[in-house]
């Protein structure tokens, strides 16, 4: 399979996997808190906006979304193959394109927050 040759793709996938393993449970817990109606004070509009407006935070948030999207895209590509769907070329293009577009969208949104 051509997948095994692309160490850069794998490297981003592994970085994204490590990041999501460490970070996403806390994120999901925050979503759960919001969903149950207990809004953490840092997620009100004022504090949240102020927090995201700083440049280090923007860089970190972009990195998080970029790596997570890449991880999901690559893993989904392999997953589709495992489910027996063999149009690997098409899936690869579509999934990596979606990951790239998501990353670009994140960058645009972050740059627009002052």
């Amino acid at each position: 399979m051509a997948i095994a040759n692309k160490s850069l793709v794998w490297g981003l996938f592994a970085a994204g996997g490590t990041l999501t393993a460490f970070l996403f449970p806390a994120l999901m817990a925050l979503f759960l808190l919001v969903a149950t109606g207990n809004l953490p004070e840092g997620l009100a509009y004022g504090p949240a906006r102020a927090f995201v407006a700083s440049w280090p935070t923007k860089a970190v948030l972009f990195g998080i979304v970029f790596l997570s999207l890449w991880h999901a895209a690559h893993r989904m590509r392999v997953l589709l193959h495992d489910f027996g769907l063999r149009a690997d070329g098409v899936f690869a293009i579509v999934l990596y394109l979606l990951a790239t577009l998501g990353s670009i969208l994140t960058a645009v949104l972050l740059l627009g927050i002052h």
Partner: protein
Amino acid sequence: MSRRPYVRPVRRGSWYLRQARYRVYMLREMTCVLVAVYCVLLLVGLAALAADGPERWQAFLAAQQNTAWVVFHAIALVYFIVYQTMAWFQLAPKAMPLQWGKTKVPAAAIVAAHYLVWFIITTLVFWLAGVI
């Protein structure tokens, strides 16, 4: 070479159902769907935050507050912890074997270090969000 070599039949779409190991593998890999879902949620939230004025952000938060989301987040949280975080940490000693000369760092130490870092990062996120 024989005239008709035996090719063991493999069911392309359901091979993973045959053994428990394969089923666990598939459950592990399917966490990527959750990663994608939460990335989309993050992007939607970021778009709401980036808008002028607090209305869209508050609408985003209000839209999260129903039972369906509570159930989804709760199940996703447990599923993700078991099949991504714990599975990833279990593989960590194989992924990053540490060795000084002849002494190898025991696998349990590497796994414990991962859990410690996870605790620290979780605490940091909760502190930043104002939960603690």
